[in-house]
């Protein structure tokens, strides 16, 4: 993809909105009041005069507000969902006003554990409150209010982004017309919590972590890299790993009989881990992964269908056949609950070998489903 690509949104600037200024703190799910809160966000396209074409994109664990285009002319890669956002793409910026918001707890321009606590003048570190998916959504609601949008045409996201989509339609049923939760779940399985916990343990076991008080000192790079490596394994399928790497060796013809990376898959994971630590804060990883673990949409309501009782949105629920982190049955549970309360929901499982990460990859099926759903959904009365 090049800058000249006419399907690109081009150069975009990450913006930010600060709210919950003291003493008007935002009440968090854990019971603590918290503020001020800054959220980083980007927008693409134009808000219609009727303000009825806004689409909120919600990102996954390691994502950020930079979903499309380039932040500067020499940036090597476009935003994380550039394949889907732009003129003529599924989220067509000629028709829609697309917003991508970062989450509270993050480290990419929003208030998180690496931010400076105005009360102490030092980074929050572990004094940062425990935030939940619900808190992320409440913070985004403040941003959507700030942008003057009463009702979103659509909320969409994959993985943890999909959890936020579900929380949006449950918390603010009047404010979302169309919901597209992708490769997601209404609650993490024990297995997924287990993988998150191993990631957190890797960070916390790193001697540089120092109970989170590492700012201004060497950071827990090894721990965070290992957490990312574990995460990355769960995002791929066995088949896609086999196809990509097999048992191929990296830059050598024979085994080295030592503990350097022999296999391509080892060197790939090391690269992914090392690359990640340059752009992500270890404490943010702890907080956000814990927020995912806590997420259980049904829990305050008893049953999932009761959570959906007042939902107004139409759903397009998408899962991927080879996703074993958030398997299809978890998406079917969401659809099931919609059916039981009479909410309209389309469900499809896309056949793919790419595992959980398939939602980030170019897919004709995914694009055309979303394009058609938005086109017909926008026509229907709100």
């Amino acid at each position, binding site marked *: 993809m090049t800058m000249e690509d006419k399907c690109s949104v081009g150069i975009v600037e990450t913006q930010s909105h600060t709210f919950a200024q003291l003493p008007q703190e935002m009440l968090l799910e854990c019971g603590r009041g918290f503020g001020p809160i800054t959220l980083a966000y980007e927008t693409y396209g134009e808000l219609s005069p009727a303000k009825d074409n806004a689409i909120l994109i919600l990102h996954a664990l390691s994502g950020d507000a930079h979903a499309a285009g380039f932040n500067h002319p020499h940036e090597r890669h476009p935003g994380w969902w550039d394949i889907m956002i732009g003129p003529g793409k599924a989220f067509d910026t000629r028709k829609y006003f697309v917003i991508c918001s970062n989450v509270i707890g993050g480290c990419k321009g929003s208030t998180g554990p690496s931010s400076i606590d105005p009360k102490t003048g030092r980074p929050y570190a572990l004094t940062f409150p425990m935030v939940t998916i619900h808190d992320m959504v409440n913070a985004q609601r403040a941003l959507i209010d700030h942008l003057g949008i009463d009702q979103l045409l659509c909320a969409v996201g994959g993985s943890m982004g999909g959890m936020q989509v579900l929380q949006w339609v449950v918390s603010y049923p009047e404010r979302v017309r169309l919901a597209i939760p992708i490769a997601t779940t209404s609650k993490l399985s024990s297995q997924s919590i287990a993988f998150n916990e191993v990631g957190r343990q890797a960070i916390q076991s790193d001697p540089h972590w120092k109970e989170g008080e590492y700012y201004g000192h060497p950071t827990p790079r090894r721990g965070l890299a290992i957490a990312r490596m574990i995460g990355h394994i769960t995002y791929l399928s066995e088949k896609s790993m086999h196809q990509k790497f097999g048992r191929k060796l990296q830059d050598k013809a024979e085994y080295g009989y030592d503990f350097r990376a022999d296999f391509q898959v080892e060197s790939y994971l090391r690269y992914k881990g090392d690359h990640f630590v340059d752009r992500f804060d270890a404490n943010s990883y702890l907080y956000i992964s814990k927020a995912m673990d806590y997420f259980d949409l049904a829990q305050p309501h008893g049953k999932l269908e009761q959570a959906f009782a007042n939902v107004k949105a139409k759903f397009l629920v998408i899962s991927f056949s080879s996703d074993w982190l958030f398997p299809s049955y978890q998406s079917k549970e969401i659809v099931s609950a919609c*059916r039981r309360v009479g909410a309209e929901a*389309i469900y499809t499982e896309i056949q793919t070998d790419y595992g959980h990460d398939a939602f980030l990859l170019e897919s004709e099926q995914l694009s055309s489903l979303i394009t058609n759903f938005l086109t017909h959904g926008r*026509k229907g009365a709100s």
Partner: protein
Amino acid sequence: MGDLGEPIRLDNAGTTVRLLPEHRVIMDLIAEGSRVLDLGCGEGDLLLALKIKKNVRAEGIELSEACIQACVAKGLFSVQHGDLDEGLANYPDKSIDDVILTNTIQVLHRPLFLIREMARVGRRCIVSFPNFAHWPVRWQLFAHGRMPKTGKLPHEWYETSNIHLTTIIDFREFCHKAGIHILQEIPLRPSGPGRRSVVRFAPNLRADSAIFVLEAGPAMIANPAPAL
């Protein structure tokens, strides 16, 4: 299939669909504004026709991902990718007015299980199937000693997905065993391209297909979950 008639224009916007002859008959059975679930809804033509012409709440379940894509392209908002052999656990009892199963029961692994699921979920069930006792089928087996191939059953025996073929008489008995009450039988025979007319005389011999309208009978209501 291959038996689609002329395209039917549904609205002033120029939306058209092509319906199977059975679908045209089924259209007339559906009440205005009802909630309809089409099992094996394919590309959603019947659902779209019912939605526009009869203002129904149209829902569907379909095994093929490509068909779901086609349904979404038609603006159908309640279609679900799924396997009918897994049943209808998503649907509460009597939550649907009419549950439709056209030309599909013969491919199911557990037809008894699904028909009971349909009768549980639907106030009425509408089931169509090819009649294996239709005379050309009988003739091919009787006179030639060959596995029958007809317009309704076009595949070679080793390629067909039709594993549970039935006849009108056998289907009646099947409903009885399942505790299901038959409200109406509509045996059909071809009467011109894309058309079917009702067979009044010797239906099990002369009808190439049949539509049955069903509901849960007292036996099924008394004993909702026998071992299947």
